[in-house]
């Protein structure tokens, strides 16, 4: 059996990025990316659930009958989300307030159940840890990419620190749900163009060789 490789980790960051490539978990990604701190907290909370549910499911995969697997996975994921919910409440009520219902909704984030079914239930704990950590980091980075742009343009701040003089006119639309769609579309376009350019240059290099 192949040993876990760092490639398992890296693929989640770029090639199979959960948001920019797989387009999974878009609902929380658009809803709570209105500030960098919300995006970071949501990303970390989702990564924690992804990683710990992956480890648990992968460790007990041989004890779960096929017919009972989905209910078992959801039960484990929901318990871990409840844990995160209480921990965030204990750390900061303000943070919990700003994330609203979206912490509880991590339970139905298709990224987590998707990785449990497609990867953790079929692979060793070591490989699952790398895969989950990569996917979690990819999700967090993507959320931050959206959150930073929305906060800077929409509120003129980054992580709550003012960046512009008082005369800066904030783009309120960036903080509204439509702003999330605009920024996501911008990133998808930028990544698409970059991929195209890379493919073209690879082709040219091949032809000249």
């Amino acid at each position, binding site marked *: 059996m*192949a040993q876990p490789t760092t490639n398992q980790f890296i693929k989640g960051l770029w090639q199979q990025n959960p948001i920019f490539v797989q387009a999974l978990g878009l609902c929380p990604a658009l809803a709570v990316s*209105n500030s960098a701190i919300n995006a970071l907290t949501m990303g970390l909370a989702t990564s924690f659930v992804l990683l710990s549910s992956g480890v648990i499911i992968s460790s*007990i*995969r*041989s*004890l*779960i*009958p*096929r*017919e*009972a*697997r989905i*209910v*078992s996975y959801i*039960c*484990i994921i*929901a*318990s*871990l989300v*409840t*844990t995160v919910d*209480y*921990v965030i*409440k*204990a750390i*900061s*009520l303000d943070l919990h*307030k700003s994330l*609203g219902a979206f912490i509880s909704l991590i339970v139905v984030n298709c990224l987590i159940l998707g990785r449990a079914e*497609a*990867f953790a*239930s*079929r*692979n060793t704990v070591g490989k699952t840890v790398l895969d989950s950590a990569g996917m979690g980091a990819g999700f967090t980075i993507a959320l931050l990419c959206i959150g930073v742009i929305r906060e800077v343009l*929409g*509120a003129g701040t980054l992580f709550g620190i003012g960046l512009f003089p008082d005369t800066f006119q*904030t783009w*309120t639309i*960036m*903080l*509204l749900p439509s702003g999330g769609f605009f920024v996501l579309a911008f990133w998808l376009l930028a990544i698409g163009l970059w991929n195209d350019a890379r493919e073209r240059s690879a082709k040219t290099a091949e032809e000249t060789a």
Partner: protein
Amino acid sequence: MNLPLQHLPTTPVAMYRAIVGIGMLCALLIVGIYQATAERIAENEAQALAEAVAAVLPTAQVLRSIAVASDGGIADVDASLQKLPAFVGYDQSGKLAGVAITAAGMGYQDTIQVIYAYSFSDSAIVGLRVLQSLETPGLGDKIETDPNFVANFEQLDVSLSAAGNELAHAVETVPNGSKEHPWQIDAITGATVSSEAIGKILDTSAQQWVPLLVRHREQLIGAPEPVEN
């Protein structure tokens, strides 16, 4: 390369073992984390409330938690058991500093909960903090941050009518820039629903509390029984 699913053949014992076992472990995890964090969460909630009371009643040193009694009077109660607690504040010399009252009502998206300070000497609301709100970021959430809107609550008139059983003028929200009277709230442009919600919450709460507080003022001036804050 993914491996094929390595699941057990389905037998009743395997099903029970998996579902009951996982269910029990999950229940233990939830109860454990609840027990571990309950104290801290209660502390955070109490601290947030205490900070809000201190912000609206800055001179208060001793607090006394009150509620409307079943006979229509005022009774001392345990604030932690109240859904919308109210606190009478006394300054360092034991003089009545004012009353901090929590109130709630429907906003644009969800319930807005606020705490405001009532001053007997000014017959006015002299401070307001939003405790809980899920108003639209960038628009409705300005009820907490817009300096012009917050200024409405530095001196919002809630004096009583001659009969003393209701406010002389209902608290009302008026379109931005058209405030003429001290009992009016200048709305935020682009957040009319949230601004009106605040006006409605304050009017409903003040109509209930202010006549009661004025009627029982003597009872409140009496030696306070300090409550844990």
